[in-house]
Each structure stands twice: as C-alpha cells, then as structure tokens.
C-alpha cells in the first residue's frame, strides 16, 4: 500500500515535470518576442531591454526553464518581491504572481465543481438505479428517454435558455455571480444555483445512463443470480451484489470528470460570465502569457494525477482482486 503510494506519487512528479517541460518549450516555439508583446507597438529598444530583463527573458531558455521549475519547489525572488513556493512565476501580462491569480480564481472553480458534483451524483446515480430497478417499466422508459435527450444538450445551449427564463424574463433569480462562501453563504448559494443546475443537468443525464446500463449488466452476472438463489432479498442483492460491481466504472468516470472540472470549466464559466480557472487558462493562452499558461496547466495536471491515484486506491477498496503492491 505504502509502496504503491510512493511509486505512484513519484511517477506523478515525473509526469508533472514532463508536462511542464513540454508546455514551456512548446510555448517558446511561438515566433514572437514576449518582451515586444508586453511593451506594445511604440516601444523603444531601451524599454524592450528593461522588460526583457524584468521578465528574465534575457537568460538562456534552459536557465529560464530551470528557474521556473525550481521556483515551484523553493520559491523565487522578483523585482516585485519574494514569490514563495509553490511559485509559478510572474504573469507577463499583469505582473501578478501566477499562484496568487490561480488561488484568487480557485474558490469559484471549487464551488462550481463541488456543488455540481453533489447534484449530479445524487440525481444521476439515483435515477439510474431507479431505472435499473424498474427496468422495462414506464418509469424506466421515461428516465432513459429523458436522459438520452438531456445528455445531448450542451451547456452553452441550455445556459442562455435558463438565464433568459429565470433571470431576464421573470427576474426570479439574479445573474449568476460568485460570492465568497465564508462571507455570505446564502448569496454564494443563490449566485451559483443556475450554473450548478445547468451543468449538473447535462452531467446527471450522463450518469443516469451509465448507472442504469452498468447496473443492468451487473444484475445479469451469475454471482448475482447465486445471491438470489441463496434466498437473499432482492433489495439486498441489488445494493450489495450488483451495486458493488457497478462502482468500478462509475468511480472511473467520476475521477475523470472531477479532475476536468477542477482544472477549469471553460464553457460553463464563459456561459455564465464567471471568472474561474478555465477563464484564466483561456486568457493566458490568448495573451501569450507563458507563466500563467504554465501555472494553469500544471495546476490542472496536478488534479488529474492526484485523482488518478485516488481512483486506483478506490479500485483496490472496491475489488479485492486488485492488489496494491
């Protein structure tokens, strides 16, 4: 177990390093002078030289890369002051510390993710199980039919419809906005309600379909029939025997969705004009802001890697055949 964790975590560090290197050098292959970009059109050569020095662009690329990567571990000093670890450098565009910008946006992304996750797991798995339990009945047909329709919707389609209905035309709700949970829990909840609902609707439909189909598959397993042949109650068989086997594919998808959402829900954020990590990532690449892009990439990669390890741990917990060594 410990051995497994050590191996996976050190593997994750290596992957993070490779992602960092790849992003960094790919970025430098853009045929553009970042100092020129930061300086604007009417820029004197002196100014460019100053900016170049300030941004550290006068040093060799490998040195810049090394400084960036060591900064994550031990922090760096900039003209603006000390950037403590994990230091993701200074934005070319705004001059802010990238880590601070990310931390500034992260509460929104986290709120969006966790709220949405709670809703779509509850409803998605709930209705999926219901449909599997009532397989072939009208309930099943309604649930599978509507989830089929809903899962083919898109956030940028459903979002504006909901906004125009609940906000612009009726005025029942205010435009979505992020208020800190610690400052105003009620405002936080009301502000996030529409994004949660719209995002969760589409995810719910996907989880419903997945839960239903994996449950139906599991219910046809022979060991499930054995459990019934032993005289175990139908509900017990359903939730103990069939559900246990369904967990593996479900946990896999949850891990993937969660890491994608934590590294920024770009479409949701743009649809509801929210400023989260996703928006930061788009801004970073549009303004060719290397440190910002690097920061957001590595931040997202971190979640993907951590959740991958967590999912593997969950497998071992669910299925005793998966031995960790």
């Amino acid at each position, binding site marked *: 177990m410990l051995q497994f964790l050590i191996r996976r975590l050190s593997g994750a560090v290596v992957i993070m390093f490779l992602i960092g290197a790849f992003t960094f050098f790919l970025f430098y292959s853009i045929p553009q002078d970042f100092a020129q970009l930061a300086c604007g059109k009417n820029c004197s050569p002196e100014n460019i030289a100053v900016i170049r020095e300030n941004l550290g662009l006068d040093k060799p690329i490998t040195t810049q890369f090394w400084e960036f990567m060591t900064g994550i571990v031990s922090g760096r000093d900039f003209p603006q002051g000390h950037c403590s670890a994990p230091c993701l450098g200074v934005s070319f565009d705004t001059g802010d510390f990238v880590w601070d910008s990310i931390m500034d946006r992260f509460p929104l992304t986290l709120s969006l993710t966790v709220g949405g996750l709670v809703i779509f797991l509850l409803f998605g798995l709930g209705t999926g199980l219901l449909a599997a339990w009532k*397989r*072939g009945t009208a309930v099943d047909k309604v649930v599978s039919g509507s989830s089929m329709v809903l899962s083919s919707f898109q956030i940028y389609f459903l979002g504006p419809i909901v906004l125009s209905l609940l906000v612009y035309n009726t005025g029942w709700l205010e435009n979505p906005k992020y208020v800190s949970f610690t400052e105003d829990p009620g405002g936080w909840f009301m502000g996030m309600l529409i994004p949660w609902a719209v995002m969760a609707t589409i995810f719910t439909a996907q989880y419903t379909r997945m839960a239903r189909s994996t449950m139906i598959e599991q219910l046809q*397993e*022979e*060991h*499930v*029939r*054995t*459990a*019934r*042949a*032993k*005289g*175990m*109650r*139908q509900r017990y068989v359903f939730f*103990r*025997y069939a559900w*246990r*086997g369904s967990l593996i594919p479900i946990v896999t998808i949850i891990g993937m969705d969660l890491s994608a959402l934590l590294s920024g829900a770009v479409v949701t954020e743009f649809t509801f004009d929210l400023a989260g990590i996703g928006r930061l990532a788009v801004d970073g690449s549009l303004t060719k802001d290397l440190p910002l892009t690097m920061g957001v990439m590595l931040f997202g990669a971190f979640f993907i890697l951590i959740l991958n390890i967590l999912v593997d741990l969950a497998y071992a917990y*669910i*299925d*005793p*055949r998966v031995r960790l060594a």
Partner: protein
Amino acid sequence: MTTLTKTEGAKAPGGPEAFLSVRDLRVRFSTEDGIVKAVDGLSFDVERGKTLGIVGESGSGKSVTNLTVLGLHNPKTATVEGEIVLDGKELVTATEKEMEKLRGNKVAMIFQDPLTALSPYYTVGRQIAEPFMKHTGASKKEAKARAVEMLDKVGIPQPAMRFNDYPHQFSGGMRQRAMIAMSLICDPDLLIADEPTTALDVTVQAQILDLLKDLQQEFGSAIIFITHDLGVISKMADDLLVMYSGRAVERGSVREVLRAPQHPYTWGLLSSMPRLGGDTAQALTPIPGSPPSLLNPPSGCPFHPRCAFTAEVSGNRCSDERPPLPAGRGAACHLGDEQRSTLFIEQIKPRLG
C-alpha cells in the same frame, strides 16, 4: 426409487413420498422473434434422499426447468404454467417473499462455473454464512462458526483461515467445494446441481462427485443432477430423465436407461459417447443435424428430423403426432416396444461395444 409419473400431463398431486413433483410444466419466454417454448409439458418427481439425473443437449430446457423451480426466471419475460409442488407447497403461484424463504433454505442450487457464480467482492466465508444468517436468524458469530464447519466438511484445509479468503484466492475445485458448502449450510431437503462439474478438470470432477455423494448421505438431501455427461450420471443418479426440446423423451432408473435405452435420441447420446474399454475400431456416431429451434419446434415428435428410424413407423405419425411419454419406465416414441428392443439389439448395441 423415484415415484414415476402416472401419465404425463395429469394434474395429480405428488404422492406422499414425492418431495418435489413437477406436473405439466410449461415455460415460455417472449422474445423479439416470437415465443420460445423452453419447457413444454414436463412432469417428474423427486423423492427424499434420492438423486434424479436430467440429461440433454444445451437448450433442451434442463436449466430453465430448475431455475423455474427456484423462481429465478425473469417474471417479465417468462410465463410459467403447470404445477411445481415442493413438500406440499405450490411454487408456481408462490409470492416472491415465500420463494425467498425457500431458496437456500429448503432448496439450494449449485451452479456450473464456481468462478463466476461466487461474487468476487466478498469473502468466501461471508458468502457462505449469509444464507444461514438470513434463514435461521443466527448471529454473525454463530454463522461464522457454522460456515467454518461447512468448509471443513467439504474438505477445505484450514477452514478458519480460508473463511476470510476471497474467491480468487481459491482454486477451481475449492471454489466448487465452497459453493457446495454454501448450498448445504441450511441443510436443504433438495439440492439442484446444474452441471456442477462441467467447468472442472477431470480429477477434480471425480472428487467433487464423491463429495456430493458423501454429503448426500450425511444430509439426506434429494438431488436433481443436471448434466450432459452420461458417465457422470451413471455414477450419481438413481433415476434418469432424458430431455429433448423442452420435453422429457425417456425416463427410468439409471440402470434401465443406460443398459436398455428405448428412445432413438438416447441411443444417439450413447453412441456418441466414447467408453473405456470400448472397441477402438468402432467409430463414434454423432447424432446428425442440430438441436431444434425452440422458437419454431418441429411438428409431431420433436426428434423426427434427426431420427434414423422414422421409416419404421407407419404413415407420417412421426411428423404429425406428438408421442406421449408413458407411465413409469418408458420413452416418448411412436416405435412399438418390440420394434425398439429389436432395433436396439440389432443396430445400436453392437456399436456401443
């Protein structure tokens, strides 16, 4: 000996000795292509402490019959008609709750493949102990003690330690032993063994069969032993039912059916089976053709398209008229008794070596 049915289709209640009596059982599945008659008018009895063997090809309705006895068919797609009386209780009309109390308690089942029939997610011990807790209301501790005792009885070494193992930590033979322990933990009166040795290798097969016989003597359970292996059946069963296309085509004691089979289908089964000490120059004779479609079974005798002796029957009776299975020892065939014994002695017996 098993009490044999008086006349097929008769709605007589099972005799006092018959622990399980099935009368004119019909199981149909509605599928997209039409109605599948998986079991079509089957009757048999099983007496306490005795073993009834059921043989037949895949799709002959052996397994469906026995799943239906336990009520494990899908109620949405299957329609069940006829009577299944277990110890005086009618099962076809029983509620799911009543069936739950019966399953694993009075009637238990052993499945073919112990790898897939045990859940990979729970310990062997837990899976064995579960039905005991459910049916006797025993505590966890009592159930564990009982499960360990059962594991010991089925010959698993260090049963207390093995209790906490998962099925994947058991070998194939041990899994089937665990399965047997699980089925016998509530001391059932009837054990249905659905090809319990098919998935095992031959040496393990023999061990499992011996174990089942020993345990049957100890527990006094009746056994329905389903197989397509006539060698196994001769070792295990007292009586034999040969099934074809959802119907019984021949029945009798094992000795009678194997020594002097009466139905051309049984002849075919025997001729296609190699024997130890048989004449190696004598080629095995497979039954020509393939099992009939249950969706659209042949008219008359379902075996007639594959039967080599239809010419011996006058007229088109084989393809027009369904032969009844007579009372007691007998076969559902239009050939006369004498005709059959002559055919068997002259044409079939020499081939069996």
